[in-house]
C-alpha cells in the first residue's frame, strides 16, 4: 500500500468512528442513565461520568412495579400472530396475483398498492367504530386483525413480485402429477419464497412491535397494552425518574434491536427490495 493510501484509509476509519459515536450518543445516554440512582443523576449531572455501581435495580423496577413485564408479553401476543397472519395470507394472495390470470387481477393488485400509500389516519375512526360494532374493541384481536389487514398491502405487493420469478413450468409439472392448487402452494411456492418471507417477516415484526397508534386507539385496558403504549404510561407513572424511564425504554427497544442485530442482512434486504418498486 502506498503512503497516500494508508493515510486515506486511516482518515476514513477516524471519521467513521467519530460519526458512529456521535450517532449512537442518545443510546449511550439512555444506557448509562438506566444504571444511575436519581441522587447521582441530580447531583453529578455530567453525562460523561459513568454510573457509580453496576446495578439492574432500575430495570427490575420498570419490569416489575412499572408493569413492563405485562406490556412485553402483550407485544408478543399482538406481534407474532399479526406477522404470521399477514405473511400467510399475503403469500396466498401474492401467489394468486402472480400466477393466475383472472378478471380484475391488475385492479386488485393496484388497490393493494394504493392502500399501502394512504396515511393510516384515514382509517382511524372507522376502524375504531368497526371494532366497536363487532365487539372487538379492547381485545388483542382488534389490533391483530387491523395489522394483518393493513400490512397485507405492502406484503402482497412484495411477495407477488417475488413469486412471479418462480418458473411456471415447475407448477405445471406438479399439476400434471395431480397435486391440488393448495398443495402446490404449500409444497412448492412457500419453500421457494422462504428468502422473501424471511426478509419481510423481520421487517414486519419490527414495524408491528414498534407500532404505537393502533395500540392506543383500539385498546383501553392497561393490562392489554403493547410495550410502546405501556412505555408512555410508565413515563406518566414515574414522572422525571429518568433512570426508570431509560431502563423501560431499553426494555422496549431490546427485542427489535436483537432481532435486527441477528437478522440484519434480511432486514436491510427487505427494505431494499421493498423500495425497488
Amino acid at each position, binding site marked *: 500500500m502506498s503512503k497516500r493510501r494508508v493515510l486515506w484509509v486511516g482518515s476514513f*476509519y477516524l471519521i467513521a468512528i467519530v460519526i458512529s459515536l456521535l450517532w449512537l450518543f*442518545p443510546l449511550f445516554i439512555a444506557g448509562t442513565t438506566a444504571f444511575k440512582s436519581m441522587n447521582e443523576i441530580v447531583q453529578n449531572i455530567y453525562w460523561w461520568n459513568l454510573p457509580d455501581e453496576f446495578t439492574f435495580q432500575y430495570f427490575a423496577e420498570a419490569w416489575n412495579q412499572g408493569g413492563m413485564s405485562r406490556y412485553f408479553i402483550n407485544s408478543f401476543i399482538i406481534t407474532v400472530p399479526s406477522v404470521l397472519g399477514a405473511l400467510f*395470507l399475503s403469500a396466498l394472495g401474492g401467489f394468486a396475483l402472480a400466477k393466475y390470470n383472472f378478471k380484475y387481477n391488475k385492479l386488485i393488485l393496484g388497490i393493494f398498492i394504493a392502500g399501502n400509500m394512504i*396515511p393510516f389516519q384515514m382509517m382511524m*375512526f372507522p376502524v375504531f367504530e*368497526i371494532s366497536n360494532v363487532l365487539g372487538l374493541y379492547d381485545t388483542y384481536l382488534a389490533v391483530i386483525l387491523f395489522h394483518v389487514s393493513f400490512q397485507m398491502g405492502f406484503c402482497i405487493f412484495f411477495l407477488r413480485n417475488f413469486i412471479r420469478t418462480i418458473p411456471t413450468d415447475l407448477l405445471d409439472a406438479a399439476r400434471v402429477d395431480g397435486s391440488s392448487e393448495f398443495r402446490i402452494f404449500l409444497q412448492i411456492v412457500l419453500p421457494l419464497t422462504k428468502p422473501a418471507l424471511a426478509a419481510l417477516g423481520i421487517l414486519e415484526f419490527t414495524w408491528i412491535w*414498534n407500532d404505537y397508534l393502533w395500540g392506543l386507539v383500539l385498546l383501553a385496558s392497561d393490562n392489554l397494552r403493547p410495550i410502546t403504549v405501556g412505555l408512555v404510561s410508565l413515563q406518566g407513572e414515574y414522572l422525571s425518574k429518568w433512570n426508570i424511564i431509560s431502563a423501560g425504554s431499553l426494555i422496549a427497544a431490546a427485542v427489535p434491536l436483537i432481532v435486527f442485530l441477528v437478522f440484519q442482512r434480511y432486514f436491510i434486504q427487505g427494505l431494499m427490495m421493498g423500495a425497488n418498486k
Partner: protein
Amino acid sequence: MLIPVILYGIWVIAPIFYTIFLSFTQWDGLTAPTFIGLGNYVDLFNDPIFYTALFNNIKWLLIYVLVPLPLGLAFAMFFNRSLPGVKIFKTAIYLPLTLSFVVLSQIWTWIYQPKYGAINVTLEAIGLGNLTVAWLSNSDIVTYALVVVGCWPQTAYTMVLFLAGLQNVPTEVMEAAKVDGANRWQRFWKVILPLLKPATIIAVAVTIIQSLRMFAIVNVMTRGGPFRSSEVLANYMYVEGFKNYSMGYASALAVILFLIILLFVSVYLYQIFKTEVEY
C-alpha cells in the same frame, strides 16, 4: 385469495370512504352521525389551530427534505466501500431505524431536559451556557427540537435507499469515468447522481409522506404543546376525535391530510411515469 380481499376491503378500503363520508357530518362517536355538508371544512378554515398544525407540518416537511435526504446520501457515499469493518459502522448508523418512535421520544425527552439533560449540561460545560434553552417548552423552538428526533431514524432510512441505488451503479461505468479523467466531484455529479435518480425519487417520496403523517413523536413528547405550538395535523386529528369526541371534524382533518399526501404521491407517480416514457 378471497380472504385477503375481504379483510383488506373491511379494514382498509371501506374505512377510507367512510372517513370521507364522516367528514361531512357531525359525529360524537356514539350517536348517529348528522349530515352537515361542508360545515366541518368551513370551521376548519377559520380554525387557528388548524393553521398552526398545517404550518408545523410544512416545517417538518422542509427540514425532512433538507436534512435527512442529503445526509443519508452523504452517509451512503461515505460508507459504500469494501474495507474491513465497514459493516459495523453501517450497523451503527442503521440502529435508530429499529427503535420505536416512542422509545426515541423518551430518550430525547431526557436529553432535552432543561436542567439535567445532556444538551444543556454540555452547553454549560463548554461555556455556552447562554445558549441553553428549555427545548420542549419554548414555543418558538419546540417543533424544531421534535423534528431533530425524527431526522435521526429518517437519515438511516434514506441511507438504506441510497445504498440500494448505489448497488445499481456498475463499477465499469465508474472505472470508465476515472480513465476519462473525471475527478471525484465530476464523477459524483455527472455519473453517480443521474444513476441514482430512481432511488432519489423513492427517498424523496417516502421522506415527504413520513414528515406529513408524523404522530408518535409529537403525541409522546409534547402532546402538541406548549399551547398547541407544536401541533401537527395527525395529532390534532387524534385529539379532536378521541379526546373531544368530534369525529366528524377530525375526519375532515384526515381528508385534508390525505389530499396533501395525495398531491405529493401523484407528483411522484407522475415522475416515475415520465421517466419511463423518456427511456
